[in-house]
């Protein structure tokens, strides 16, 4: 092979690649400038919606201590707390909000985002009778919860024990966190 080590050649190649990457980067920056605020406000709206769903009237973020590593944020109001937790499900994190009243009882849960299997784990977040039945069973529960397979009182979704277990873990973390708040 011919030795090609002259500076002109190396420069030409590097500059071409530099030019391409710069143009692509500039384009991306432009698109990001347009979409970033829309994405941020959509996420914010989703979080607020989830808080309102489990804690009527919403709440304000407060400082918290957490030993499970699952709690992301705690919102408080006169009625109780909304705890944002992110347990690991079957296929990635399940981002959800748990409403808990002043006596440490679950007010309700709302799933913000999840990537569980369609038709199985995703039922937990579904807007249908099955999904609602699963989520509503937690209302009024307190203490330490477990799915019925593990000897607890939570009815798991058929074919999605891991998802059900993850959500139960998330609720436990939220309950423990609120208990820690006193």
């Amino acid at each position: 092979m011919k030795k090609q080590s002259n500076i002109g050649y190396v420069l030409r190649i590097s500059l071409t690649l530099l030019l391409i990457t710069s143009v692509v980067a500039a384009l991306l920056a432009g698109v990001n400038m347009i979409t970033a605020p829309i994405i941020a406000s959509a996420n914010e709206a989703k979080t607020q919606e989830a808080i309102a769903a489990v804690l009527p009237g919403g709440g304000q973020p407060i400082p918290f201590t957490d030993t499970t590593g699952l709690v992301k944020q705690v919102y408080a109001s006169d009625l109780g707390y909304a705890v944002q937790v992110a347990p690991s499900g079957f296929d990635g994190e399940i981002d959800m909000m748990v409403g808990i009243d002043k006596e440490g009882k679950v007010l309700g849960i709302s799933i913000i985002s999840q990537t569980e299997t369609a038709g199985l784990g995703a039922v937990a977040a579904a807007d249908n009778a099955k999904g609602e039945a699963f989520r509503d069973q937690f209302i009024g529960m307190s203490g330490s919860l477990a799915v019925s397979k593990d000897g607890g009182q939570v009815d798991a979704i058929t074919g999605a024990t891991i998802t059900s277990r993850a959500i139960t873990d998330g609720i436990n973390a939220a309950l423990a966190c609120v208990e820690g708040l006193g």
Partner: protein
Amino acid sequence: MDFKKQFKEGLLTKNPVLVQLLGMCSTLAITTSLFNGLGMGIAVTIILICSNVLISALRKVIPSQIRIAAYIVIIAGFVTIVDLLLQAYIPALSESLGVFIPLIVVNCIILGRAEAFASKNGVLASAVDGLCQGIGYTTALVIVCVIRELLGSGTFGGGLLNGGEGIRIIPEGYPAMQIVMPVGGFLVLGCVIAGSQFLMKKLETRKMDKEAAK
């Protein structure tokens, strides 16, 4: 340029999924509902057309020694743009496709077409190639989606029709859940590939018989 030939190649004889066996990862992973299949197919088609056009336009400027790096940067740029736009304007699709949108960057179909077609052909032909290959990819995805959704969840058009629930065809409790799981993906894809090969052989022999009869 032969549009009809390119279309036939993309849809059947050189179908990216069923014949070239490219992009298997996304095909197996996201084909659980019609909404996912169509969304992924359309996203890939758009990126494929854009990257094919740009790479074809730049094919004489990009030195061959760094072409792969240049292609990947261009493809990654388009994928990120589509990803951001989906997050901003169609969050439901962005959520259900999850990590597979960013992974389009390494979808072999796009780099494969850049290397095999766009780097050797004109802009218009490359755009048509992108469209045809994209349609082929989408068609294959939709076929696998419809079968998996019907057998695995018992519905048709999940995420799209009937307020996102799909039209129930098989009563609840009867569908074989495993079909929606990864193992079902392999089974269904294998059967669809076998079926398409059978169909193509049949078309070919019929064509040969016709020619022999002449």
